[in-house]
Structures are given as structure tokens and as C-alpha cells.
């Protein structure tokens, strides 16, 4: 999950999610970055609208709260 958190950190900080940035973060965290996984992650996230995805992910919590109201 380290790779995913690194990507989300970059997203939250408004920085570009690229191999270099992810590796820098992982290194700073003392994690030895696996080149292939970093590459694969960046490739997989290409074209993914992160904002939208995490909004949807937060939804079940919101929906769950509704009926209780």
C-alpha cells in the first residue's frame, strides 16, 4: 500500500504523479522502491480521475449516514 499512499500524497499536494516523485517519497520513507511497481502504478493511474474515484469511495459512508438522519 506504500505506493498507493505515495500517489495519494502527491495528489493531495497537487503534485504530478510520476515515477520520480513517487520514488523520492518512498526513499524518504526508507522504503526501497521497486522500479517495476512504480512504473506499473504510474501507468495504471494514467487516465484515472483520482478526485472522482476518491469521492465515490467516500460515498458509502455518506450514504450510510443518510438513513440514520
Amino acid at each position, binding site marked *: *500500500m506504500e*505506493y*498507493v499512499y505515495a500517489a495519494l500524497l502527491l495528489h493531495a499536494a497537487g503534485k504530478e504523479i510520476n515515477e520520480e516523485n513517487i520514488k523520492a517519497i518512498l526513499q524518504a520513507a526508507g522504503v526501497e522502491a521497486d522500479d517495476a511497481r512504480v512504473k506499473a502504478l504510474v501507468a*495504471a493511474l494514467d487516465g*484515472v480521475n*483520482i478526485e472522482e*474515484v*476518491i469521492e465515490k*469511495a*467516500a460515498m458509502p459512508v455518506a450514504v450510510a449516514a443518510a438513513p440514520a438522519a
Partner: protein
Amino acid sequence: MAHVAEWKKKEVEELANLIKSYPVIALVNVADVPAYPLSKMRETLKEQGVLRVSRNTLIDLAIKKAAQDIGKPELEELAKHIQGGAAILATNINPFKLYKFLQESKKPAPAKPGAVVNKDVVIPAGPTSLAPGPVVGEMQALGIPARIEKGKVSIQKETVVLKAGETITPQLANILNKLGIEPLEVGLELLAAYEDGLVYGPDVLAIDEEQYIQMLQQAYMHAFNLSVNVAYPTKQTIEAIIQKAFMGAKNVAVEANYITKDTAGDILGKAFRVALLIAQELPEDLLD
């Protein structure tokens, strides 16, 4: 049989012929059935059978004669079930269906002293239409908690006055009739039925439909499970098979945090929800 009256011989002959001409021969008790429901039943059965009321002794002779004529000694067994006011119901309907049909055709009937009820008789709680009078005392004597309320007799508490299999006393019949409760059932009571070498008693013929429905559902689920679990596709299961394969693949990818088009949402979402839940635990001024 020389001393037997000619009409009796003829009657036995006719009954025997009737028995021989239908595959299913049932004995029904018509002792307590009024004429109207009886003729109604004849009409309903018209297409599929004949109902003949006769003397028990003649029915007995006719069954034995028919059994001999067609060489089916098993049919004789049926004669042992003659009781009450027996009648012959000769039909094409399978005995189980016939039993079901006769049960469903029964109608409620008023209480009669000496009759046996086949289900619990309950007097419901609440007001009745009865005016105050000696009836209150009569009820109390039978253990029915009756009282006068707002000028009417009222029952204080739901009371079971008879259990299934018990006999109606004259006193209770009187009360039940006053209350308009009809604890008896009137209709043809099936005593036994013969088909194809076998005599079926009512205990065998009473089938629990709910149980069959459950078996159907279980059998279907088994077939469904088998088809999906071994990936043998059928029209009904192909979608479930695809979904199972997809969900399996997706779950593995999500568990492994391997991001694809189909798992990005779940994996990022998982991480985001963790962050969100953690954030909820933090003091507000820590958050943006």
C-alpha cells in the same frame, strides 16, 4: 345370494361396473353432508368422475366383486375402510390431487353436540353481539371469561375451548352457535383411495406442499451452485459465472493492491477511507 333382493343384486352389479371403469376408486364419508353440497360436488366432479351413494354392505360387495372380476385382489383392501355413510367416488384424478381437492372444498359448519373437531376451537377476546343474560353464567361455567361491558357480553381473554380431536358437548355447542363460531367442516371426507394395486389412506395422502416447494428450491440451488462452481455454463448461470470470475480476479487484484481500470477505485478508495477515518480521530485544527 338367492335370498338377496333383486334390486340389491342390480345395485351391486352397477357399483361394480362403475368401479371397474375408473382407475381411481375412493371411498368417501358423506354421513354428515347435506344434500346441497353433495349435488354441488357431483357437478364439480362431472367431467372427471362419478359419486355414488349407496349402502355400506352393498359397496362392500361391489368392491369384492370388482376385485374378483378384474383379478386385482389388492382392490379388496379398500373395503376395509368402509365406515360412516360411505360412498364411492370413481375418478381419473390422482388420489393425492383428489385428497387435496376434497380438503379445499370443505366448508365451515355450525357446532353439533357429539361431533369431533379436527382443529382447536378458539373463542377470541373482545366484545360479542350477545345481550346480557344467563349466557354469561353458562360461559363462565365452561371456563370462558365473559363479562358485561357496555351492555354486551364481552370475552376477556382469548380462550381455547376444545382441542383437536375432542368432542363438542351440548353446552358448548349452544355457546358456539350463539357466538356464530363454526368449528366443524362439512364436505366429503376421504376414507381411502385405490389406484393401480395400492390403497392409500388419508395419512399418506395429506402432503405438505411447502415441503415440496422447499425441495424444488433446494434442488435448483444445487444445480445453480454446481453449474457456477464448476464453470459449466447454462443460460441461467452464465452471468453468475462471469461475475464470479470477475469478482475473484478483482478481489485478488484489490487485495494485492494491483491497480487496473477495474481496481483503481477500490484500492484508492481503500487508502482514502483509511485516511478519512484517521482524520476523524484528529483534532480539527490539524486538518486543512
